[in-house]
């Protein structure tokens, strides 16, 4: 079964510190992975996807098939990065379903 694991419910860092939000997945095929973000009082939105290999708001995520991971990283956290982050995996059903992790709340303190 496809599964996404985000082991940390809460990650608390100081402004300017590096951030790494962990995501591990289980999937036997070729995965397609995403990070979604929900800022306070805003709707959930796509942050980035691994196939785009892009950096959004200073965040990057590299797919590591050997470790089945897709960790989200940023070298210097900002207070405005405080939000709920969800890792998601394309579900192998023929429909455009996503399997979401349980989420990690990132809190960046001044």
């Amino acid at each position: 079964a496809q599964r996404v694991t985000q082991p940390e419910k809460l990650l608390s860092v100081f402004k300017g510190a590096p951030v790494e939000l962990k995501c591990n997945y289980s999937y036997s095929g070729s995965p397609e992975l995403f990070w979604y973000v929900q800022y306070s009082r805003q709707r959930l939105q796509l942050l980035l996807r691994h196939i785009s290999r892009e950096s959004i708001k200073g965040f990057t995520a590299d797919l590591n098939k050997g470790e089945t991971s897709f960790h989200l990283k940023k070298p210097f956290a900002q207070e405005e990065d405080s939000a709920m982050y969800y890792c998601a995996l394309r579900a192998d059903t023929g429909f455009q379903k996503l399997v979401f992790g349980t989420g990690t709340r990132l809190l960046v303190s001044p």
Partner: protein
Amino acid sequence: DVKVTQSSRYLVKRTGEKVFLECVQDMDHENMFWYRQDPGLGLRLIYFSYDVKMKEKGDIPEGYSVSREKKERFSLILESASTNQTSMYLCASGRQKSYEQYFGPGTRLTVT
């Protein structure tokens, strides 16, 4: 800009009531989804639809039903609300060949 709207931001219902949550999208998306969002459990898929009048069960469909009579509208129905259905409900839509989903603002439902 994709717009997904949900009929209510907050809703309070009594146990046993029939509850309707409405979702409308304005981007002609084929796919629409209903999730519930609970702390520590993340997003769990209740139902989704890939076309008008078509629906598929998600991971937690028990106690829910859906209706999609028009392409832009996807309704979630709680036939007989129970306290364990107190949650944040998120609607999302997406294009047929895309895995990117666009979310609504959510409806916080409280069942007392």
